[in-house]
């Protein structure tokens, strides 16, 4: 296979924007022409409890759920969920946590999800920037487009600082 499957797990607490972030990621990968699948559990678990969303993309995706312990990337929006979410990670996988972002620098208090997507995007050169921006626009209200693009770019800058890069 020329394009291996990329497995991403996004995790956090209900209300933090985990599902929104995974909607944007899966749509960006879809826009880049990949086969994609996304799975998560809705419902009662949303109310302040742990939430996780699986996104997979590549040439052909079968199961929509990331098999246990095979995530290339785990993106966590809540510090107290890091240990739980880490169990999805494959050996040598990349863990992105709120610790990478100084909360003082957030363009908006609720934009951590988009900043972390920006960091993730630096490790996924197979998804061109325009696909990310289109996915951001498609999933967010117009009046917050600019501030979220700022958040996304902050993530890209932070990726450089933290040397988050495509897997070798």
């Amino acid at each position, binding site marked *: 296979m020329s394009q291996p499957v990329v497995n991403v797990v996004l995790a956090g607490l209900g209300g933090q924007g985990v599902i929104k972030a995974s909607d944007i990621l*899966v749509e960006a990968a879809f826009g880049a022409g990949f086969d*994609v699948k996304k799975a*998560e*559990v809705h419902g*009662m678990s949303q109310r*302040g409890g742990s939430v*996780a969303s699986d996104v997979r993309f590549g040439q052909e995706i*079968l*199961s929509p759920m990331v098999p246990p312990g095979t995530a290339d990337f785990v993106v966590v929006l809540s510090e107290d969920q890091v240990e*739980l979410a880490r169990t999805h990670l494959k050996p040598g996988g990349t863990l992105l946590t709120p610790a990478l972002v100084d909360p003082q620098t957030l363009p908006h208090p609720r934009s951590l999800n988009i900043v972390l997507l920006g960091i993730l995007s630096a490790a996924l050169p197979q998804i061109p920037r325009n696909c990310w921006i289109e996915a951001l626009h498609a999933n967010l209200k117009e009046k917050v487009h600019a501030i979220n693009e700022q958040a996304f770019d902050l993530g890209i800058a932070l990726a450089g600082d933290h040397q988050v890069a495509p897997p070798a």
Partner: protein
Amino acid sequence: MNHPERMLLSGNEAVALAAYQAGVALGVGYPGTPSTEILENFARLGGHAQWSPNEKVALEVGLGASFGGAATLVTMKHVGVNVAADPLFTAAYIGASGPLVLVSADDPGMASSQNEQDNRRFAVAAAIPMLEPGDSQEAYDYTLAGLRLSAEYKLPVMLRMTTRVCHSKTVVRPTPPTEKPAAPHYVKDIPGRVMIPAYARPAHRRLRDKLTKLEKSQFARDLLTTYGPQDAKLCIITSGISAVHCREAAPEARILKIGLTHPLPMEAIEEFIDANDFTDLRVIEEGDPYLEELLRANYIAVEGKPEMYRFGEFNVGRVRRILDKDRSPEPPPTPGKPPELCKGCPHRTVFQTLRDRGCIVAGDIGCYTLGVLSPFEAIDTCVCMGASIGVGLGLRHVLPEDQARKVVSVIGDSTFVHSGLTGIAEMVYNPPPTGHLLLILDNGTTAMTGQQEHPGTGRTLDHQPTGKIVFEKVLEAMGVEQVHVVDPWGDTEKFEQLVDSCLASGKLSVIIARRPCILAVGKIKEYERLAQATACTTCGDGGEG
């Protein structure tokens, strides 16, 4: 119409799109995870969609539409089919005039349900055809196929989805049908639709003949899909989402995926097995051993799964374990943070009050079931929609007086309309000696499933004003002795006093604890503002709202 070639849709969105493109004239249902988004999306696309007070009524409205010749979609979660079972079983005898697809959204693993019943059993028991899609493309295709099947065989068809099929987003390439259904028009058929015994006896025979014909049909064969190498020794027979788990877990296997899982196209399955040189025949299915039992009853020596895999949903790892016959204990799922009642949720003060008084609380289905968890632990029973009232009354009838006086039933507003009114009839008709207290937690929305409207909100599925059931008037009219309305959050003291006085009174009492859901309150205000603005414009006052 221009249809994009390639779309990214959830299974629920795919069902809605297919139904809309196929010309479904009416979509009806009751909200329930994981089915809720189907009708919401159908309405968004421009379809005529309605929430009914419960699933039984939804199916009855759907049947009426079908009898009138219209293409109809009825949606509910798996336990909703229990509520709709009464019309369902006889609907099969009568059959469909306009095509009718009933979506049953099952919840293996119980992401948001009180049980993990396998509704493939319903298809057998009610004798209706069942299709099982495994991803959004199949959800789209099988909705269209179900409507075609229903039209051709004049039978209601069940589309059995599961949580992951409903909610996962996958790629769909829509193929909109070019033919539109005929316009609704009533054609009289008294022996066909009036199920008195004399007409029902031949109807039952007609039904069985239809199923036999369907079992042997090309239609059923066309819904068999195979994957994997031709020379494989391992054969996996499967359906629904399990197929993609199998393909990933066992690329070495030849996989037979069955799309029509009732009636099973047994001849075609046997031909497939006979034409190959398999040494290992396995069935991989979530939930009950449904395919396994049917295949074995037909002398096909398949091996199913160990009992431990009946519980919960599948993933690639669990499928691999089953294939490896691994019966070692599975690692327990890492416990996450449990959900909780929202900060500022008006239910919080209710459960504090009940906890502090040591009440025995017969609970119900909704967000407020979270009152069972710490720090409240103030719910003692939860069975099904509406059970709080009957269960509370039963407890009151038999417990010693000091305990009976502490029994309280608690029900939400949407659940009250769904199944609470018959409980009130029971309460008035068979009052316990100590009386009873029911709390209706009226937060103005079906909060649990994502803030859907219901007859008690006075707004339709798409939030337009309509007739409204006013609970206090209904309760008084039904003969409840004491009916109070109070804001349990804004006036907690008064709420507590009312609970105490009602419990002490020995009378039949209902307290409507009314305050909007903290998550919905902004939207509710906006709907009310829009409704007022529209009303002013239509009555000629020219107001701005």
